[in-house]
């Protein structure tokens, strides 16, 4: 059975309420839904798919990238299930996850009429609208339908558009341990009072931000005594993932956690920079998985990694690559079906020097939304079928 048939079959069973029992029966879904968590990792800058998921048996890859291609002997072979593609060596910590069938690789994920601007393509991914009419984020729109202001949380300083809805914005927490008010009592009391006084115009927007801050301070304060059960890499991204694990363990209650890692815009000097960044991602994801297993939540969590586009096939004059179109997504979780959801890249039929997209990202979003028992139709404004990985 090929992938198309497999997805078709899965969707049929979904529609008829039959098939793989506990996954698809209505009562079972309801029982699991409140516990399901989605973690989104946004790689900002355009991660190069070809050096991450490497077509190392294709001669053309080496001809077009004489200086920056990953040497054959360094590539981690994915075997027959991975169409004999390979992973960048820095992703070694994820090989065990792949071998356990808990890592899904989805190459060339994009959308029609691709845009190669960081800001426009990022906005398209965040709003889930290639026509660029929507201003709200896909998770923001989901959040608008929930009651809890902490239904979703952002790990970082500035909540991304993806998590901004009409009525609600996900709270932005840079780190659990530094998130406390350190002012003399009179100031803190005055702050609490000002947060209750109705204003107008921009001052009222600021007051609303004060109320959100007050509520976040109260909730996050309770998480400080929660400890991690795994060793995370010592960098900002590792710390964010460690904090997400503590939030899950401590019962913050969000169904969605979101964080960003920048630096992927490798126009020059790509090999060392991409290797370092992929290392950060793989090590933090492996630690996160170990942590979730230790607290018995690994079957509840789906981690989804994406970037706003991939990069062009041929290298440029600066040992780097320029902006392309569809890029690689990764999905990790003990409750998902791992594997390659796509095919070997066609390095000959390019569009303006880049690989064409194969899978629309909204189908991956639909999969993530179903995971947290949300209605993809309501959020995405159209019919996008989930992939067969759940």
């Amino acid at each position, binding site marked *: 059975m090929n992938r198309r048939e497999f997805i078709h079959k899965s969707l049929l069973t979904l529609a008829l309420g039959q098939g793989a029992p506990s996954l698809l029966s209505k009562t079972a879904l309801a029982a699991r839904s409140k516990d399901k968590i989605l973690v989104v990792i946004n790689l*900002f800058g355009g991660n190069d798919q070809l050096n991450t998921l490497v077509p190392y048996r294709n001669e053309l890859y080496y001809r077009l990238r004489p200086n920056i291609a990953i040497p054959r002997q360094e590539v981690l072979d994915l075997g027959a299930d991975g169409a004999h593609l390979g992973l960048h060596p820095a992703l070694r910590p994820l090989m065990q996850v792949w071998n356990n069938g808990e890592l899904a690789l989805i190459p060339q994920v994009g959308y029609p009429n691709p845009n*190669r*601007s*960081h*800001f*426009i393509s990022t906005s398209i991914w965040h709003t889930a609208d290639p026509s660029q009419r929507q201003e709200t984020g896909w998770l923001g729109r989901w959040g608008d339908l929930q009651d809890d202001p902490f239904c979703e949380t*952002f790990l*970082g*300083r*500035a*909540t991304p558009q993806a998590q901004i809805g009409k009525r609600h*914005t996900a*709270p*932005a*927490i*840079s*780190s659990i341990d*530094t*998130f406390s*008010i*350190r*002012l*003399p009592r*009179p*100031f803190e009391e*005055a*702050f609490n009072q*000002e947060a209750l006084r109705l*204003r107008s*115009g*921009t*001052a*009222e*927007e*600021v*007051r609303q*931000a*004060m109320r*959100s*801050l007050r509520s*976040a*301070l109260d909730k996050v304060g309770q998480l400080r005594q929660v400890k991690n059960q795994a060793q995370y890499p010592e960098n900002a991204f590792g710390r964010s993932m460690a904090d997400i694990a503590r939030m899950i363990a401590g019962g913050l209650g969000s169904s969605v956690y979101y964080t960003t890692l*920048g630096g992927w*815009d490798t*126009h*020059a000097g790509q090999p060392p920079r991409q290797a370092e960044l992929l290392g950060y991602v793989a090590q933090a994801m492996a630690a996160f998985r170990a942590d979730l297993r230790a607290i018995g939540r690994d079957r509840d969590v789906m981690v989804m990694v994406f970037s706003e586009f991939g990069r062009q096939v*041929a*290298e*440029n*004059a*600066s040992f*780097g690559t*320029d*902006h392309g179109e569809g890029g690689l997504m990764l999905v990790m979780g003990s409750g998902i079906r791992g594997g390659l959801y796509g095919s070997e890249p066609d390095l000959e039929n390019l569009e*303006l020097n880049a690989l064409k997209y194969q899978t629309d990202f909204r189908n991956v979003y639909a999969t993530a939304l179903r995971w947290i028992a949300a209605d993809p139709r309501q959020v995405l404004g159209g019919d996008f079928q989930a992939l067969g990985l759940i």
Partner: protein
Amino acid sequence: MLLYLNNAQSRKEHPNQNWARELLELYTVGPGHYTEQDILEAARAFTGWTVRLPGNQRPREASANLAFEYVFNRNWHDPGEKTFLGKRVKSGDEVLEILIAHPKTYEFVARKLLRFYLCPEPPAALVQQGARVFRGEGTRGFLRWLFTSEVFYSPEYRNALVKSPLEYLVGLWYAAGVEKVSFEERSGRALYQSLAAMGQVPFDPPSVAGWDGGMAWLAESPFLTRLNLLAGFAGREGRLDLEVFMDNAGGVLSLVKPEAQLL
């Protein structure tokens, strides 16, 4: 810009598109007024635009504070004909000439300046007027026009902008009569951490587009940092002139009011 956006290494065999793209998208006409093909053609036109140190010194051997200078490397330049925005060109200079003559460039920059100094959504008519002034009189002329026009002082535009971390900090120092700040000692390093936590390290924007600004400055974590900074002003009651910092200023506790965050 040639270094930051990698054009200093761009050669005819493999042109680097980064500079050409951002020139159009962020600094002149703005999105919607060019195609991907225009970017490729502009990138070709800018091949060979690079930098060097005076006297051709090697970067590793020269003083760290020695400035690079522009140089045109003919061997790296793609001399063929290009089509840019419908016109036939060969050089990067011609690309710049086309952009300088383009009316959208002036609209785009005028709107950016009005968003920075006046309000988040400047009225279209004002943008058009500003574009005309900018085109005829340059940046200085534009600012003079804006700061001496009645509309700038209109109440509807007062407290319309959220202070950036730098505007917030400098405003506080101004109010406290602080005249000199050093980033050298330990207190300086703490300052640097605070600016980073508020989301704005001077000269180090998160991306080539700069900072988003607006209510993004007041997400939970950066807002918390702004508040925690106030602890340093708690004992200065008598020496604080909050009138220069915010509307609705009373005693030092006014600093927790929403107005303290607004320009």
